[in-house]
């Protein structure tokens, strides 16, 4: 039994947002909903890192725990999905999720948020695989076709990996060995290796100020 996971390598992510675009396109998500987003830490400063974030498909998903109508379920592949026919749009999953994955299509005055939408690991929803209903509500079901989520497949630097946890772990392990340690723990990995001291100016040219 596989356990599907995402992994984003901050050493490789170049904040190109291709994963975000791919996801939107593949799943035809409504306006205002972003199942995936790229977060940049220390933008423009030393130690700038980007991470592509979406639902992490937790094993003990907080969203599923707090849902008042119990609309979440975990597939055999370890993908956390939800049933939009049952969702009442209360927003509790959004409060509980550490990653900010649950999204809502409406602005929410008087708490009208609409049905929650989130990353499905390109695995659709409870409806029959690749049925039109499923596509309308949840977008693509690539997993049923034997494909991985498009965001990961599109990633040009292969920063974003998706797939069975064991396989990804293995890839990651190899990368870490090559880099010799965890990037975050050590700070900027290639600063020490660079030929000259960093320039006084900080960050990239498109720095937002």
């Amino acid at each position, binding site marked *: 039994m596989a356990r599907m996971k995402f992994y984003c390598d901050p050493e490789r992510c170049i904040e190109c947002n291709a994963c975000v675009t791919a996801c939107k396109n593949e799943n035809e998500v409504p306006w205002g909903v972003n199942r995936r987003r790229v*977060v940049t830490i220390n933008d423009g400063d030393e130690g700038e890192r980007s991470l592509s974030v979406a639902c992490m498909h937790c*094993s003990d998903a907080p969203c599923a725990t707090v849902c008042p109508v119990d609309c979440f379920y975990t597939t055999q592949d370890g993908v956390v999905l939800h049933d939009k026919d049952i969702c009442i749009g209360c927003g509790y999953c959004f409060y509980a999720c550490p990653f*900010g994955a649950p999204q809502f299509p409406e602005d929410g005055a008087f708490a009208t948020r609409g049905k929650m939408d989130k990353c499905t690991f390109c695995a659709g929803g409870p409806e029959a695989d690749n049925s039109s209903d499923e596509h309308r509500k949840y977008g693509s079901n690539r997993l049923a076709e034997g494909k991985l989520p498009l965001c990961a497949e599109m990633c040009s630097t292969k920063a974003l990996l998706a797939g069975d946890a064991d396989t990804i772990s293995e890839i990651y392990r190899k990368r870490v060995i090559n880099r010799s340690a965890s990037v975050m723990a050590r700070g900027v990995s290639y600063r020490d290796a660079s030929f000259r001291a960093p320039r006084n100016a900080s960050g990239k040219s498109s720095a937002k100020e």
Partner: protein
Amino acid sequence: MARSITLQIDNRNKQHAGWLLLLLLCLFVQPFDTFAKASESRGIPSAVVLNPAAEIWRDVRQREQLTNGTSQVKGVDSGVLINAYGDQWRNFRMQQLIPIGGFLLIGVVIALALFYLFRGKVAIEGGESDKKLLRYTNYEQLIHWFIASIFLFLAISGLIILFGRPVLIPIIGKEVFSIIASACKEGHNLMGPLFLVALILIFIKFVRRNIYQKGDLSWLLRGGGIIGKKHVPSNFFNMGEKTMFWMLVLVGSVVIISGFVLIFPIFGQGREWMELAHVGHAIGAILMISVIIGHIYIGTIGMEGAIEGMKTGYCDLNWAKEHHDLWATKAEQQGEAISNDKVSQLREVSSAQPLGGHVQEE
């Protein structure tokens, strides 16, 4: 910061607890200390299979300054990598609010049932007299039943949302329950603001009679007459009623404000605000419901003659003398006591309608 929010929650409760229902709140406060420790040890959700991302996320999490970044995706909190309080809120909701809140409400009902078995209906000792006093004007009854109906609707719909998953889903299934829950959610959100309107009306009309006075302390010390079985002198409202009024106003304000924070997620308030608001909303609501259950008990089966004032506008003179003698004596001296016949003429009771009222104020 994780600690500070816990402390904040903690303090809020201690403030209420200080002058409200001390005993009840201790139930809430105590688990909060354990809650803080528990959340630390839990850390991130334990993974059955090691997630290769776990390491990096743990790194992110340990460095608080790193949790806030920027994102091309625009939206509230979209730059936040980790919402550290989500898990605390989840623990509060699942391990404290639902079980403790549920048992508290059941406990109140059981306690009242036991009290009823023990004490029975408090009768008017002198029996009904042939005179009545005007207790509530038409307008006062109107706003009372207005806030009552809205409160009941909000309480029931809120309780369904809160306890539906453990209580109702096993009985009626997810599909049916989600319909009911959606109805409750939409109704709760739409009717919620009406409670503010009703509370303002109630506050303006009743605040003057609810200011604490001399004698209220002795009422409290004698347990409102439960201790010693003797009626304690009180004015138009007794200490218990005044306390309920202020509880309704203050806890009600907390519930209203937190409710607005929750139903208007358009002012850029982040998740931590909404989580905090939810905590305040839930604790406040459960407190209010508990107290109102007691209020309803006294009004219906607990005490003879207590509901008459709100039902008909008039209360029996003997009842008034027993329970609100300072007010009743003064009113009687001023010649405000009206004969039962006159009351039935003013209320036109000949047309057999169940509810009553009083002539309009000029």
